C-alpha cells in the first residue's frame, strides 16, 4: 500500500509541477458553459426566443394591405415578431441571405379587392431558406393570427357584403342601406369584445410529477445546473486521457519496467497508477465544482450525494483509461482509442444535447452509460433536489461500469506485467 502511495504521489507531483495542460483542459467545460449561457440563458430567462425579424413587402398599397403589418406589429405578436418593410423582392432576398430576417411576408396586388369580392385574400409567406426554427415559429403565429382575423371578419361579413353590393351597383347608398351598414358594424364592434376574452383563453400544462413546466428558469444557477455537469464530464474524460498518456509514455520510456524490477509488487505498481488517476480526477472534479459554484453560482446542494456521484465518475474514468492503456501497444494507439471512446460516450451520454431530446431508444442507451447516468444523477440532485436514496439506479450504473472496467484492466495489466 505504501509503495502504491509513493508511486501515485510521484505521478501527482509531476502533474503539479507542470499543470498547464490540465488547466487548459479544465477551461474547456468552463468556456463552453459560458458560451451556452450567453447563447440560451436570455431566452430561457424570458421564456421566449429573441424577437424574430420578418420583412413585409406590400405590393397592394391599399388600406387593407397596410393593415396587415399594423395588425401583426400592434397585438400580442409584437413581443415575438419584429417587422421591417422591404422595397422589393431582390432587396428582401439580400436581407434573408445575410441572415437579417427569418421570413418575408408579401401582401400581393389585389389583396383588398379580394376581400371586397369575398374571394380568398392571400398573404404569401417566404421562410428564410437558411433557417428552419424561426420561420416555423413565425408561420405558427401567423396561422393563429389569420384564424383570429378570419373569425372577426366573418362577424363583420354582413356590413361588408352590403358595402360590396353598393359598390358593385355603382350608385350611392340609400339612407336605409347606410343605417343597416352602420348597425352591422356596431354589432360586429360589440362582438369584438371577444378579443379580450381570447387573450385569457388558457391551456395549462400538467406533468405526472405535478410540475407545470419542463424547464423552470430560476436564475443563472438553474441554467448551469442543467448544462454544467454534462460538460464537466466531457472535459473530465479528456483530462483522464491526458493523465493516462503520462502512464503510457512512462511504459514506452521503460520507467515501468525499471519499477517492476525494483522490490515493488505488481499489485502495488497497478494500484499506484490507479490511485494517481483517481486522486487527480477527483481533485479536478472538486475544483470544477468549486469554480462552478463561485463563477456560475451553482448551488451545491447535498454535497455528500454529489461527492458520491463524483467519486463514482472519477472511478469510472480511471477504469476506462486503465483499460485502454492495458490493451494499447503504443501511446498513439492509446490516444486514438481513448479519443474515439470519449467522443462516442459524450455523444450518446448527452454531453452536448440533453438526453430528453433523444429518441426513446437512444435515450435508454444514454441512461445506461456511465456519463449519461452521472449526468442525470447530477441534474436530479442539483435541479430536482433529490437525495442519494432517490438516485440509486444511476449511481449503481456508474459504479458497475467503473468496477467492470477496472477489473478487466487490472487482469490484463497483471498479465502484461508478468510477461
Amino acid at each position: 500500500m505504501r509503495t502504491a502511495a509513493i508511486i501515485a504521489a510521484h505521478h501527482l507531483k509531476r502533474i503539479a509541477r507542470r499543470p498547464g495542460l490540465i488547466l487548459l483542459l479544465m477551461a474547456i467545460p468552463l468556456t463552453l458553459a459560458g458560451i451556452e449561457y450567453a447563447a440560451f440563458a436570455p431566452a430561457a430567462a424570458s421564456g421566449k426566443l429573441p424577437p424574430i425579424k420578418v420583412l413585409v413587402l406590400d405590393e397592394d398599397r391599399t388600406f387593407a394591405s397596410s393593415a396587415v403589418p399594423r395588425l401583426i406589429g400592434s397585438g400580442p405578436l409584437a413581443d415575438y415578431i419584429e417587422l421591417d418593410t422591404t422595397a422589393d423582392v431582390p432587396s428582401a432576398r439580400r436581407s434573408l441571405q445575410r441572415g437579417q430576417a427569418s421570413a418575408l411576408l408579401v401582401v400581393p396586388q389585389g389583396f383588398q379587392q379580394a376581400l371586397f369580392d369575398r374571394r380568398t385574400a392571400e398573404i404569401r409567406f417566404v421562410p428564410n431558406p437558411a433557417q428552419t426554427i424561426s420561420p416555423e415559429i413565425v408561420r405558427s403565429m401567423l396561422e393563429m393570427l389569420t384564424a383570429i382575423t378570419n373569425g372577426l371578419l366573418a362577424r363583420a361579413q354582413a356590413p361588408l357584403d352590403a358595402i360590396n353590393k353598393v359598390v358593385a351597383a355603382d350608385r350611392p347608398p340609400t339612407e336605409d342601406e347606410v343605417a343597416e351598414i352602420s348597425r352591422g358594424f356596431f354589432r360586429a364592434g360589440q362582438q369584438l369584445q371577444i378579443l379580450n376574452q381570447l387573450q385569457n383563453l388558457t391551456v395549462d400544462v400538467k406533468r405526472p410529477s405535478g410540475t407545470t413546466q419542463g424547464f423552470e428558469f430560476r436564475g443563472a444557477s438553474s441554467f448551469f445546473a442543467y448544462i454544467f455537469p454534462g460538460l464537466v464530464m466531457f472535459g473530465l474524460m479528456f483530462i483522464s486521457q491526458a493523465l493516462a498518456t503520462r502512464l503510457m509514455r512512462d511504459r514506452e520510456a521503460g520507467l515501468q519496467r525499471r519499477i517492476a524490477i525494483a522490490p515493488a509488487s505488481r499489485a502495488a505498481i497497478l494500484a499506484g497508477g490507479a490511485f494517481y488517476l483517481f486522486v487527480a480526477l477527483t481533485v479536478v472534479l472538486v475544483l470544477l465544482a468549486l469554480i462552478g459554484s463561485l463563477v456560475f453560482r451553482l448551488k451545491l446542494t447535498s454535497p455528500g450525494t454529489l461527492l458520491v456521484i463524483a467519486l463514482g465518475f472519477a472511478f469510472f474514468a480511471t477504469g476506462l483509461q486503465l483499460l485502454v492503456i492495458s490493451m494499447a501497444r503504443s501511446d498513439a494507439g492509446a490516444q486514438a482509442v481513448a479519443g474515439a471512446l470519449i467522443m462516442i460516450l459524450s455523444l450518446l451520454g448527452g454531453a452536448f444535447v440533453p438526453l430528453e431530446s433523444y429518441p426513446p431508444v437512444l435515450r435508454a442507451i444514454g441512461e445506461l452509460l456511465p456519463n449519461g447516468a452521472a449526468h442525470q444523477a447530477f441534474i436530479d440532485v442539483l435541479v430536482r433536489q433529490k437525495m442519494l436514496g432517490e438516485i440509486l439506479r444511476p449511481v449503481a450504473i456508474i459504479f458497475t461500469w467503473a468496477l467492470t472496467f477496472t477489473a478487466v484492466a487490472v487482469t490484463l495489466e497483471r498479465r502484461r506485467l508478468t510477461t
Partner: protein
Amino acid sequence: MNALSIAWLDLKRLMRERTALGWIFIGPVVFTIFFGMLFKPQPERQTTVAIVNHDVDDRVARAVGVLLEQDRVKVVQAQAIEAGRWSVEIPRDAAALFAAAKPMRLTLHAREEESTEERNVRFKVQKALTLLYLHGDADLSAESIAALPARLARAEIVALKPGDIGVQHRPMTAGFQRSVPSYLVMFVFLNVLVSGATIAADRATGRMRRLFIAPIRKRDIVLGKLLSRFAIGWIQIAYMLALGVLLFGIRWAQHGWVFFGFLTIFALASAALGLLVGTLFDDPDTAASAAVWTSILLAPLGGLWWPLEVVGPTMRTIGNLVPTGWAMQGVNAMLAFDAGAAEVAPFALALAVLLLVALTLATRRLRPA
C-alpha cells in the same frame, strides 16, 4: 521545390498517425450521422389526444374534438387521465363559461419533459379553443358543432400561402443538410489547427532544428508546413464533399468553383492559424490542447453546433467576428441561396486577412527550438 518536399514529408508523417486519421475519417462521419439523425426533420405524424370531460354535458368536449380533428389530430373521448397519453381536461363549468363569453382554462396533461410534440399539441389545443370562441354558436347545439368545419372553410377570407422569391427551399438547418456542412467546417478547422500545432512537437523532437540547419530558407520551411496542413484540410474537405453526395444526398453549391475557392481560402486560413498556435507553446501536448480548445470555443460561436438564428443579437454579432462564422455563413449562402462570388466575397476577404496576419505572425515566431 524545398517547400513542396517539406510539405510532402510532413503530410506523409501526419497521415501515419492513427489519432489524426481517426479524427479526419471517422470522427466527422460519427458526428454527422449522429446529429443529422437526431435533428432530422420528422414527418408529421398524427397525434392522438384524449379529451376528459368534467362538464355537466359534453358540448364543449365535442366541439373542441371536432376542431382538433380539423387540425389533423386524432381525438378519443376518455373517462380518466392516463399516464403517457396527451389528455385535455374540460373543466366542470366549460359550457356555462362559453355561453357567457367568459374565458375558460383547459388543462393539457403532458409527459414529464417538454418536447416539440407537446408544443405542437398545446398550440393546436389553444387554436381549437380560440376558433371555438370565434366561430361557435353560444348554445353549441349538435347541429352547430357538426357545422363548424364547413363554417371555418367559409370563413377563410385571409389565407397564408407559401411564397416564392426564386430560391429553392431546402431544410437548411435540419438533418444532414445542416450537419454535413457544419461538421465539414468544424473538422477542417479542428484537424488543420491540431496538425498545425504539431509544430511544437517538431521543435521538441529536434526535427525543426534539423530543418533550420539545412540549406533551406525559413520562408520555404513555413510554406512547406503551411502546405502540408492545407493538404490535410483539403483531404478533409474532399472526403466530406464526397460523403455528402454519396451517403447523405447533399446538393452542394450551384457555383462549384466559387465553392471550392471559398473552401480553399478557409483551409489556408485555418492552416496559418494552426501554425501560429504551434509556435505559441513549447509543450506539444499543451499546443495540441490549445488547438482543440480554440476549435471547441470557435465552433459554437460560429454557429456550427446550433444555428445562429436561435441565439440573441449579441451572440449573432460575435458569430460575425470569428473565422468559423465567416466560413459557415459563406457556405450557407452558397447552399441555401446559390450565392456567387460577389456575395461570399466579404467572408472570403475576412478569411484572407486572417491568413495573412496569422502567417506573418507564425513566420516571425517560428524558431528551431
